[in-house]
């Protein structure tokens, strides 16, 4: 596996769940305003 592929896979593995968490939290935070 090339370094580029490993970088994309690694950052996607942690980035996608993090984006999901951020999305859900922002949706919840909208209730404040």
């Amino acid at each position, binding site marked *: 596996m090339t370094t580029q592929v490993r970088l994309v896979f*690694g950052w996607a593995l942690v980035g996608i769940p993090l984006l999901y*968490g951020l999305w859900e939290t922002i949706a919840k935070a909208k*209730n404040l305003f």
Partner: protein
Amino acid sequence: MSLLTALDRKHTIAPEGYSRWLIPPAALAVHLCIGQVYATSVYKNSFVKHFDASQTSIGIIFSIAIVMLGLSAAVGGTWVEANGPRKAMFVSACFWSSGFLVGALGIGTKQLWLVYLGYGVIGGIGLGIGYISPVSTLIKWFPDRPGMATGLAIMGFGGGALIASPLSQQLMSWYDPDYNPSVASSVPSGSAVAMLFVTLGIIYFVVMMYGVFNIKVPPEDWRPEGFDPATLKSKTLVTTNNVSAGNAIKTPQFYFLWLVLFCNVTAGIGILEQSSPMIQDFFRSDGGVSTVTVAAAGGFVGILSLANMAGRFVWSSTSDYIGRKPMYMIYLGVGILAYLGLATIGHNATWVFVLLAMLIISFYGGGFATVPAYLRDLFGGFQVGAIHGRLLTAWSAAGVAGPLIINGFLDAKGTPGKLTVDAYRPALYTMIAILAVGFIANLLIRPVASRFWERAADEVPAGTTPTERETV
């Protein structure tokens, strides 16, 4: 080569040309998983019903886990340094995942002590080892930007709850069709939480294995392109010498920094622990009705999570440019002003309250993320992970002190649901005093005396053991 041998430090040295940008995702894979510990509130009510126990008995599960985090980081820090990040991450994954499985057994058999043992004790050990495992490796890969590197990983610890909270609700609604996460009074069944524990145990083990197999330490003489260690010498408080963990705890700098972290965390926990009822109480009229709804208060909790996470990355990265000591002067000094604002004008408008609380919580997160780089500046990179582990006992102590202070004041002022802003003022002024103590402790931090430095190999008398060498 056996599995355990493959995990040794000597087998994790990176080959030439290995990208250092592969290290943060490996560290994040561990921290995002163990950060679940901040999402325990999603099944707290289910535990109360399932075990027919009080809120306090259930709250103890979280407290045990945090105390074990501090203890295992303190006790296991030297072991982590000696065995390297890969073995440490593997051990952390085993403890963290088996903690969930033993916890699931406790839920299934309705034995609360098994949940204490599983999630609290066994899982807590996984938390402590996992929290410190990538720190010194990141500092070695990013000597030019240690604040940013550790900020990224420790941001993951804050982000873990952001993922685990909605994911757990989704999974529990699959396992218990009667459970509706969008209805506040809906509580998932015990078997759904047991299934959730099994699922999370498996998912976290797999994700943490990505971290285990991708973490690598740089070769001894490696340095990033264009980086000159001599530039560090020009910065105040930054040493190019090394202090062992054994010697670090003999220095006043360690205890001043312990106090700084303790004060910063205690003050932050005061708001975090009470965030949802606090915003409602601040905007409660004399008639007892709050203008902030339960749903809006839930939104406030979400905003604080974002501020906590962002603060870890943004403030820690900023410290690479302005220095660690000035950064903590901001956390503690501006923190004092923010708390003062909360106590005096925070009740005037929701946006003022939210902005001030966000600032305080971003400093709380920033304090956690900046401390490894502060330790590196003071004690060098030699055993920074082990020193960090010992310093995290401040977190455990603050985890007990913070809620005790705020709940102690509030209990004396009335009953929950009827409190107003006046009930919070004594607690807020106490937090200001605590931050002031931390501010002074930070001001007193000076460079470590040369008698604590490690000697170069050619200066150590022949026949000296490594332990003796630590105290030379």
